[in-house]
């Protein structure tokens, strides 16, 4: 006996109920449960769909789908870092390396200005406000999408929300660090100025890649990661 379309939909709902929120992870588990239920029915054809489903789920152990979710998250973190690195590297090859150099020199000379730390704090603050607005917009889009299709891929959620951990919170930490450390940047020795400028340059590029470049290329990256992305979204 084969599972009907409705029963497959039931299984998707079942995985969601057990904390599997992303479509890519759900799909694999649904196919697994479906195969197992069909196998169970071969041996005991009179068993109800509900019972067969529960018997199959029990085989995942007391933690249910948790181990699978965790492993998938780890795998995707690795992939996200790989993508991040791919775009980050570009800023150190021609022609983009010129922008990187200009940025580095600008920060370096900017730090020499007296009271530059206050200007830096101001810039970070403005950035934070923009980030909060951006996050808010993104959440809204994701929420609307969730309401409509409920097919959100794990990498899609990472590109939109968690951003591999480099969100505005990281910027807030820098804000606090600069604010509390009371460093007078203009009085720093040259080697410290270079280190500070270099770190700031690298961070600027990283934020730009994560907040602008990767989201812009989201669809391309999702198609590359998920062979089923086109199939599901009818692209």
């Amino acid at each position, binding site marked *: 006996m*084969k*599972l*009907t*379309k409705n029963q*497959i939909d039931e299984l998707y709902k079942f995985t969601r109920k057990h904390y599997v929120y992303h479509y890519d992870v759900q*799909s*694999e*588990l*649904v*196919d*697994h449960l*479906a*195969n*197992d239920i069909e*196998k169970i029915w071969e041996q005991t054809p009179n068993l109800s769909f509900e019972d067969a489903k529960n018997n199959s789920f029990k*085989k*995942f*152990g007391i*933690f249910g789908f948790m*181990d*699978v979710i*965790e*492993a*998938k998250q*780890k*795998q995707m973190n*690795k*992939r996200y870092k790989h993508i991040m690195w791919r775009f980050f590297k570009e800023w150190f090859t021609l022609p983009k390396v010129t922008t990187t150099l200009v940025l580095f020199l600008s920060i370096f000379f900017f730090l020499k200005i007296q009271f530059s730390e206050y200007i830096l704090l101001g810039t970070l603050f403005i950035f934070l406000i923009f980030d909060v607005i951006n996050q808010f917009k993104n959440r809204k889009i994701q929420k609307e999408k969730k309401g409509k299709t409920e097919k959100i891929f794990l990498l899609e959620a990472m590109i939109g929300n968690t951003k591999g951990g480099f969100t505005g919170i990281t910027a807030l930490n820098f804000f606090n660090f600069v604010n509390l450390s009371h460093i007078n940047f203009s009085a720093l020795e040259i080697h410290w100025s270079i280190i500070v400028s270099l770190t700031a340059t690298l961070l600027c590029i990283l934020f730009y890649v994560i907040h602008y470049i990767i989201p812009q290329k989201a669809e391309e990256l999702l198609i590359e990661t*998920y*062979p*089923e992305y086109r*199939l*599901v979204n009818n692209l």
Partner: protein
Amino acid sequence: MSNQKLYKGSLQTIILKLLATHHKMYGYEITQKVKELTKGELQITEGALYPALHKLEADGLLDIEVVKVENRLRKYYKLTEIGTKETTDKLEEMQQFLKTMQHLVNPKFSLE
């Protein structure tokens, strides 16, 4: 069934070997194949299989292919080029391990 712990460390090698022989397989198929080949002696649990597959995929040893089968999506795993090489290495390691264990548990006595 009681010696499942002994097999635990070999799960990745088992998966790689199966994929080397069968070209492409999906999760459920792997569990069934192992059960069939070992006549039920080894049963890969679902909670261990998928994390292992996802790790191998993240390490670049496996590639995926998704096909619509009946009314659902099926994710097939197959070896990448690096995966094929790694399978050979892992199988060699396994042979070495078996040999060492053999020596340990069943030492040959000599008169010297």
